[in-house]
C-alpha cells in the first residue's frame, strides 16, 4: 500500500506503452491505481486497491472497473497465498478452509469443492498461481542479484518464489560481503531475473530506512485522479510519467534533493516523523 511499491518500474512499464495487463496482489494502492490511470490494466485479481481511510477510493481503478475496461476477478489474501503455495510446491491445487458461502465462490468457477478422502468433509480447492512476472522494490541487492528486503516482506517472498520472471529495483546495489553485514538476503539470486538500482524507486510510497511515505505528493496525485481520467492524464501522468524520460528526471520533478531530505527527516525525531503526516490546512 504505502510502502515499498515498485513505482519506478511501474512508471517505466507505462512509458513503454505496455498494456493489457492482468494484475494480481494482496493489498495495494497507488501502484495499481497508476497503471489503471494509464489504461494498462485489463483484468484485476487484487484483494484490495485503495487508500484506506486517509484518501479512500482508488479513483482510476474504480473508473476502470465500472466502465468495463478492467475485468474484475477480486481475490482474497489467504486464497492468493494458497494459490502461490500450490505453484511453489508444484502441486495441482491447494485446499482452503474458507471462501465457501461467500460470493467469491460464485465468481470463481475455477474454485472447486471436493470431498476430503480422510474425513469425508467438503473442502474448497484453488488452482496454482504462477505469475509471468513479479515486480519488487527492495532496499538492497548484491551484484549477483541476491535481494534484501528490510521490514515486512508481506507477499513478496512468495511472489518471488512462484513467478517465472522476477524484476527488481533496489535503493542500493552493494557487494555480497556488505549485504551479509547488513543482515543477509531474503530472496536468493537464482529467483531474480533482473535488477536495477533506482534510489527512491518506491516514491511516493515509503522505503524505510531511506525515506518515509510522501503523503503530500499522494495528495496531489489523488486530487488529479479524482477529477477524472482525462484530467489525471493531463495533470499527473504527463508531468510525472510520460515526460520523464528517466528516473533521474522524475526525481528532479518531485523536488530533487529537498524532497529526499524532507522524507528522510523521519529519523531525526518522533516529532519530525509526525510532521510528515500532518494534514495540510
Amino acid at each position, binding site marked *: *500500500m*504505502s*510502502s515499498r511499491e515498485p513505482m519506478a518500474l511501474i512508471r517505466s512499464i507505462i512509458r513503454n506503452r505496455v498494456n493489457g495487463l492482468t494484475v494480481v496482489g*494482496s*493489498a495495494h494502492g497507488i501502484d495499481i491505481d497508476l497503471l489503471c490511470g494509464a489504461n494498462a490494466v485489463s483484468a484485476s485479481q*487484487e*484483494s*484490495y*486497491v*485503495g487508500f*484506506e*481511510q*486517509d484518501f479512500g*477510493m*482508488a479513483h482510476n*481503478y*474504480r473508473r476502470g*472497473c*465500472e466502465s468495463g475496461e478492467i475485468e*474484475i476477478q*477480486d481475490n*482474497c*489474501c*489467504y*486464497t492468493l*497465498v494458497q494459490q502461490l*503455495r500450490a505453484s511453489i510446491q508444484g502441486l495441482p491445487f491447494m485446499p*482452503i*478452509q*474458507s*471462501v*465457501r*458461502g*461467500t*460470493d*467469491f465462490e460464485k465468481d470463481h468457477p475455477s474454485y472447486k469443492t471436493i470431498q476430503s478422502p480422510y474425513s469425508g*468433509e*467438503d473442502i474448497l480447492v484453488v488452482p496454482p498461481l504462477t505469475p509471468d512476472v513479479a515486480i519488487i522494490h527492495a532496499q538492497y541487492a548484491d551484484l549477483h542479484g541476491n535481494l534484501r528486503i528490510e*521490514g*515486512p*516482506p*508481506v*507477499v513478496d*517472498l*512468495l511472489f518471488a518464489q512462484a513467478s517465472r520472471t522476477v524484476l527488481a529495483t533496489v535503493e542500493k546495489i552493494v557487494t555480497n560481503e556488505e549485504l551479509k553485514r547488513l543482515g543477509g538476503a531474503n530472496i536468493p539470486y537464482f529467483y531474480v531475473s533482473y535488477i536495477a538500482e533506482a534510489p527512491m524507486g518506491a516514491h511516493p510510497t*515509503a522505503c*524505510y*530506512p531511506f525515506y*518515509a*511515505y510522501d*503523503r503530500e505528493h499522494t495528495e496531489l496525485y489523488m486530487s488529479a485522479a479524482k477529477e477524472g481520467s482525462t484530467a489525471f492524464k493531463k495533470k499527473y501522468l504527463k508531468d510525472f510519467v510520460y515526460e520523464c524520460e528517466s528516473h533521474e528526471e522524475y526525481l528532479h520533478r518531485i523536488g530533487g534533493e529537498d524532497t529526499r531530505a524532507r522524507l528522510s527527516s523521519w529519523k531525526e525525531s*518522533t516529532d519530525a*516523523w*509526525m510532521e510528515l*503526516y*500532518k494534514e495540510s490546512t
Partner: protein
Amino acid sequence: MGKNCTLGELLIDQLARTVEDDTLVFHGFGSPLVQIALHVAKRVYTPNLVLVAGATYGVNPDPPFIAPTTNDWVHDRNSECHLSIGELFDLSASGRLGRMFLSGLQIDRWGNTNVTQLGRKTLKLKLPGGGGACNLSCNAKNITLWTAAHRSEPVKGKRRYRIVSQCDYVTGFGHKNADGITRRQLGYRGNGPQCLVTDLGVFDFDQDGHLQLNALYPHTTVDDVLENTEFEPRMKKEVKTVSLPSLEVLSIIRKLDPLRIHEKELLPGDRSLTLEA
C-alpha cells in the same frame, strides 16, 4: 467513571471491550479505530492479548504515534517479533485467531459484510475489496463488526443505508447467506460475528444469528437506530446505555493518536462531537 470524550474515543473503548484476554488478535488495515482499540485493550483490559498488527504483522508493537497508512514502519516500532502473512492466515485457518474485526460499506442483518461492490446484478460502485476479510470471516474464532457510518443522512431524499437487509455482495460471511446456508452447514470453525459496534449503538446477534440492539450511547435513541437501519433490528429486552471511557483509556488514546487519525473513519459531522460525562 467517565469524563467528557469524543464519539471516536467512545467507539474505541467499546471495541476494546470486545476482546478476551489470552487470545491472539489481529487488526487489518484502514481501521485506526480498531488498531487503537487493541492498544487500549492490551494496556487496560486484557494484558495477555497477543496483538498482531495489520500489514506489518509485528507482534505487540508499541508505536510512538498512529500514521495515516497502516503499513508505515512507525506501527512496527518495538514489535517483539514478527509473523509472515502466510503464518497469520494459517493461524486463523486452524482456529487459533481469537478475534478479528471486520467492517463493510454494507453490513446485513445476518452479519454478512460487503466491501467488494455496490449493485447486485449490475455494478454500481466498485469498492476497494476485502483484503483477507473473506478468509478470516469464516474461521477466526470470534468476530467483532464495526462501522462509524451507521447514520445515513438522506441525499436527494434517498438514504444509502450502511446497515442493510441484505448485502449486494457477500465479501465476509456472517451467520447465513441469502441462500440460507449457515456457517454450521459449511463446517466453519469460527463462531461468526458476535457484536456490531456503530456510531449509534452496540448490537449483538440472537440465537438465530440476527442483529439485535443491545445498548445505546448517551446521545442516541432507539429512533435514531430505526431511522438509519434498512430493516427493523430485533431489540434486547433491556437496552442499556453504555458508560463513557475512563480517564486512563482517554489518556492512552490521546497520547497514541495526536494526529487524530482515527477521526477519519467517522462521518465528518461526528468528528467534533463531544459527549459530556
